[in-house]
Structures are given as C-alpha cells and as structure tokens.
C-alpha cells in the first residue's frame, strides 16, 4: 500500500550509503530546509575532475535521507561536470517513488546541497515548498 515508503527507501533511510565524514574532502556544504528541520552536510573529494569520494551526514525525514544516500551512490566516481548536470527529475527517477508537492523539497535537498558543494548552487531547490509552516 505504501508507494512512498518502499522497502529500498526505508533501507536507504535506516542504513544510508556513504554516510560519514572524510578527512581529505576538497569541498563540503551544509544544506537545510529550515521549514522542516531537514539537514544534510555533503563532503566531496575531487581528483582530476572526478568525484573520487562523496560522503554525507544529516538528519531529517526518510525521503531527504534516502535521497542523499541514493544520490551520493549515483555521483560517486563520476566526472564533476556530469554530476553538475543532474536535474531534479534525475533525482526523482533515482528515488523511483511518487513525490507529492508537499515533499518535493525533502526529495531535492540532497541535489541542492550537491550543487552548492560543486559551486554550482542554484536558488531553485531552496525555493519555497509546501512544508512545515502553519
């Protein structure tokens, strides 16, 4: 019944890949959705134009954390310029679940953080999403 909380999403949430910190990171960025309290710190190690190492720490909802886990898997080992090209819909495809507008911001926090870490920060993903307030 739960489209959103598929087993692999919950698995990534409970046992996120690439979780932790790196001593020799070359770039890092902390992204947050203040409205929800989701938070992700992403570390990158770039060597010869390639994302040779990627790790993150964070807290937040299953969607935001699973998305970070899946995204870091995806970009690890990729050339920087390829990683920089990833779009929102790529990330939604990675998640493979139907995200309602209210949860979009959770799903895209990892991408936004990556783009900032790559020095490609765009305002797009930090724009308003339908979450958290009253």
């Amino acid at each position: 019944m739960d489209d959103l909380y598929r087993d692999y999403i919950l698995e990534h949430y409970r046992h996120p890949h690439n979780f932790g910190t790196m001593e020799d990171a070359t770039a890092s960025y902390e992204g947050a959705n203040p409205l929800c309290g989701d938070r992700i710190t992403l570390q990158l190690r770039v060597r010869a134009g390639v994302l040779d190492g990627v790790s993150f720490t964070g807290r937040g909802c299953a969607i935001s954390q699973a998305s970070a886990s899946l995204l870091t898997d995806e970009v690890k080992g990729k050339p920087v310029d390829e990683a920089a090209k990833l779009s929102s819909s790529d990330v939604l495809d990675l998640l493979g679940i139907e995200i309602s507008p209210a949860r979009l911001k959770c799903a895209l926090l990892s991408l936004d953080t990556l783009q900032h870490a790559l020095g490609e920060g765009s305002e797009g993903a930090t724009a308003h999403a339908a979450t958290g307030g009253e």
Partner: protein
Amino acid sequence: MAVEALVTPAAGPLDPEEIRKDFPILSTLTSRGRPLVYLDSASSSQKPQAVIDAVTEFNTTYNANVHRGIYEIGERSTAAYEAARKSVARFINAPDHHEVIFTRNATEAINLVAYSWGRRNIRRGDAIVLTEMEHHANLVPWQLLVQEQDGDLEFIPITDDGVLRLEVFEVLLKLRPKLVAFTHVSNTLGTINPVVEMTRMAHEAGALVLVDGAQAVPHVPVDVQAIGCDFYAFSGHKMLAPTGSGALWARRELLEAMPPFLAGGEMIREVHLRRSEWNSIPWKFEAGTPAIAEEIGMGVAAEYLMALGMDRVQAHERALLDYALPRLQAAHPDVALYGPMDTSIRGGVIPFNIPGVHPHDVAQVLDRVGVAVRAGHHCTMPLHERLDLPATARASFNVYSTRSDVDALVDGITEVKRVFGIQA
C-alpha cells in the same frame, strides 16, 4: 471544465441572456416583487454559479490550510490555491505566476506597494504623480506616504469631459517623479486611460508605474506585459470573484528587492527570536493564512472570463454603452451625463444627474422599481470637487448587463421625475 460548459462559444458577440443563467442572483425578485436590475457592478460584481460552487466545494470537501499539511485535503487545498495563482497570472498575461501576490482587494495591493516599496524608495522632496480621477484607494495611501517621507504629490488634471491632459503630464514628468500611479479605467467616468502611452512616458522620465486595474480587469483585456507597467493592482469581487479576494502583480526584481509588508507565518524561511529570513516571492508577501477559498474562487472567475474572451466582454459593454447613451439623451434630454462621449475610450459606466433631484433620492426611487444604482461620490471626492458636483448617480455594467437593464433605467428615471414632479 465546469466553466467551459457554462459559457457561450468563444466567437461572435456575447449573449448576455445566456450568461445571466450562470448568475443565480439575477433571477431573484426584490421585496416589492420586481426583478432585480443590477446596475452597480462597478461597486461589486455578481458571482456566477461556478465561482459560488468553487467556494462551497472547498468548504464541504477539502477545507484545509495551504502549504502546510502533509495530508490529502491539505495537498488539494494547496494545489487549488496555487492553481488559482496561475489562472490569475494568465488572465493578466503575467510573465511569471510567482509575481502574483494575493491580497484582500485592490486597496490592500496598493497599500502593500506604498508601505513596502514606498517607504524604502520615496525620500524627502521626491514626487509621486497621480491623477485627478483617482479612486481614494489610489490616492490616500500616497498621501500617508508623502506625509511620512516628506515627499510631494502632483496631479494630472482632466478635461471637462473626463480625459487626462497628457500635455500637462509631460510637464509634470520634468519633476522627475519616482512613481506615477493612475487608474486604468475610471470608476466614476468610465474613461479608459492610455496606459501604454502613459507608462512609456513615465518610464522615459525614469519613474516606476503603478496601474490601478480594479475597474479594468472586469471589462477590458489586460496584458501587463503589453502595458509595460511595474505594478498592477486589482480586486476579485469586481471581476465575478468572491469578496476577500484580490491581487497585486509586480515585476520579480521589484518584489525581490522590496522588504516584507505584513509579517507572520508563511512569509518566512527561518525565524529566530531576534531575526528572521524571508521566504521567496510571492509567499514573502502573504503572511498568515490567506483567503484560500476566496482566491480559489478568483481563479475560477479568471477562467470564466477568459473562456468568455475579454475582447468580447469589452465589445459587449461598449455596444451596451452605444445603446444606452443615445437612448438616455433622447428620453431624458434634461439629465446631465458625465464622462467621455467617445465610447472607444470608455468602459460601461454612466454617471448622471437629474436636475433638482439629489442622487440619493434618485437611487432611492430607482430602488423602488428594482433598479440598483450607486449614488454619492463613488470614492472619488477630489474628482467630484474638480467637476463641481456634490455627488452623482451612477449606473454600471458587467458581462450580464442587457439592453433591458438600460430600458429599466430609462423608465426608472421617468418614475423619479414623476415622484419629484419634474416634466420630462
């Protein structure tokens, strides 16, 4: 789609008799058993069934706060509210629906600009140019602003038949005003102002332009990009939408640079005890729980009018004016009519006076025969002062107005004269 089904095909002239079927109030009777002849649409328009139903549907099936709930009716409410924003943006051809801020009415929209943009940009000695025909909503906020900031107001005068004197505007622009604010269509005289030309002139002189569109959106096609203005303010309740709805459109750069106006929930990104960060536009300017059902209704009203076609709406009202003005003059040569007689620059508003009868008495007697018109200064006291009129009576049209409404007015005036013992 409910909307599409309700309207006449989008070609040929509007058929007001068909349209009237969509407005339940128009088939009610007054307490004296007369059919309601509603000729006060410039004050507030009636609402079609589709708009009424949109409000009821919200209240009975998905009432929930917006932007907040991770549950079905909350998501539905948010989606409908944001879809309404897109409809309203499309209705005025805004380049970006994030530039549409929902307000209670045109008045709040103009005050928002006066407080947020004005207090930051108007300084001692700065001039704001208005016109002599402004509604109080586009006058008093600027009075308060220049009082506070020690700025000046200047006014584009009008000719005796209610047309702006652009040659004087030209001269006023030499004062290098920071802002020029004027109404698109006069609520009292019906004058359709040359907004494109005026905006160009103002911009050439380095001023920003605010257009008060309260009387334009219900009656003429509005394209803010074609106008080229910087701010466009309007009310929902005059364009078939519920009371409590309205909007301000402004260019993104301006809105982004402007400080918040009302503060509270929703307009923030982050709040600490002593400082906060703002949300992106448009939400930065929508503090607190908005008028959700009402703005959703405004979206439906915009769709309804777009389905009718605003060029057809304008043609319909102009045809009605072309019928009404000669008919009134012929039947009542003693009645004074005001406003431009050139109906190509006039919306469906007919201000008039019966010599020897105060407009209040005119309205009161007309009410007895079921004809609803407005009497007074129509929130344009300075314009009445300029025209040396203590007050006027005013009949005004909307999409559902018909020739028989005009006929009822003509007969009603005969009745007023009878009561007051005036020979025709």
